[in-house]
């Protein structure tokens, strides 16, 4: 591949091969699972509960969850409730702007299956447009439930059970 001259592709594959090796991979997973920074994308009323997750009472920063400013710097998106067709496009755009090891949690009954809008023409299920890792049931879920979902996601990342740099079908 060096002989052909496709240096960029070769470097990318070499970096990927290096990252997937055992000790480096463990260190990477340890780092990522305690550094989940969510992006602000409030689609519906569950956003209020998500705001409570970071407040003094529930304090998600204990787990390294620090709500940060832009999609370019974050790696974690919470779909907070109903996704209308218009909002689904925005959510997908934000998701595409994030750098690669990125995770999605769908929060609330609306994000899972439409909730009280289950038969509306204008509803998109979160798993239809985004690769959701964890679902949180409830209408709206309590902040403890969100924290439990974050811990579940952390366990999943620690196991190395996620995609990184692979083209997905969905």
């Amino acid at each position: 591949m060096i002989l052909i001259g496709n240096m960029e592709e070769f470097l990318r594959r070499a970096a990927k091969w290096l990252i997937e090796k055992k000790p480096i991979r463990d260190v990477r997973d340890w780092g990522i699972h305690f550094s989940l920074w969510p992006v602000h994308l409030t689609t519906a009323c569950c956003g209020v509960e998500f705001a409570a997750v970071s407040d003094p009472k529930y304090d998600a920063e204990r787990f390294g969850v620090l709500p940060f400013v832009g999609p370019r710097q974050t790696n974690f998106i919470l779909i907070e409730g109903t996704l209308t067709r218009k909002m689904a496009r925005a959510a997908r755009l934000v998701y595409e702007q994030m750098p690669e090891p990125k995770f999605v949690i769908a929060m609330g009954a609306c994000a899972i299956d439409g909730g009280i809008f289950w038969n509306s023409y204008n509803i998109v299920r979160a798993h239809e447009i985004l690769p959701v890792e964890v679902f949180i049931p409830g209408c709206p879920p309590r902040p403890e439930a969100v924290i439990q979902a974050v811990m579940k996601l952390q366990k999943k990342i620690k196991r190395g059970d996620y995609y990184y740099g692979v083209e997905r079908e969905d």
Partner: protein
Amino acid sequence: MYDLINYLWETGLNLLFSPEIFEPLVFPGLIAAFSLLIVVIWLERKIAAIIQMRYGPYYISRHTEGALQLVADLLRFLFSEVIIPKSVDKIAYVLAPIILFAFTFLPIVVIPVSKDFAAIDHEYSLLIALALMTLYSSFLLIVSWASNNKFSFIGGLREGFLSLSYEIPLIISALSAAVLFDSFNLIEIVEKQAAMGWGIFYNPLAAIVFLVVIIYSTSRYPYEIAEAESEIVIGPFTEYTGILFGLGMGISYIKLYSMSLLYAVLFLGGWEPVVWPLNLHPVLPGIILFIKAFIIVAFSVFLRAVYPRYRIDQALRIAWWKLFTLAFLSLLFSYGIKIIEVMG
């Protein structure tokens, strides 16, 4: 064979502890700066959490109150994808933050660690440090232009406006310290302070102006205007991802660190007092210098938790009216002290 190993070991040790290698590489250079970076950002988050009655980072390492949090964040930035958007100017986008980081790092090399231990012992070392500090804003302008993003562009222009206004009080207040101790050499300044007393007691006005300028120019909180989160996403580094953004986040802290070192040398007596265990090796007084600089850094990051933010016109007004006048007065004050010394 044994002699050869012994010789190599001694030469290597000598080479490591020669000031030209040790200063940029270990202290106060790269290693000290990076460990300070990791500790200080954790401290900033922890102080903010304590003031808001939260825990802050905790579960990552329970016995040390989550001090490893920044290691985890750094690892994540290191291993995340670096996106280069289509509309950016690719060469400037990739190279500018790296050059900016290098230029932010340069003034540290000039600052001496102790009397016999300085990488560059020049008679104008204070002026060299100040001159290298003024190069910061132009590279930041290049960074902000290269992203081709409206928020980063606005952030860069704000930084340009601020830099035109803070550089003058910075230089004048540093010069008033130089006038007070009658030298531009940082080592001589510290020696004179050991004889006379700390600069902050002689000229408190210049010390206050310099402290405010440190906070002003590194966009710490009351003046966090160039990277205002709630107005323009994160200023010049809006489009950056991965390790490039990590560099960008570190830059203002490194600048804060270098300016705090300069502050400790100019006004807080540098590495004095050198007491017993510290006079065994010329590197050891650097510990006191580091502690003094760390106190300044910790104070500046503590302000995040207690202050709101100024608008840009208010900040410019403060710089041009208050800071500028006070710096001018401090220069006159220094001249007055000199005149009294000459008369009496």
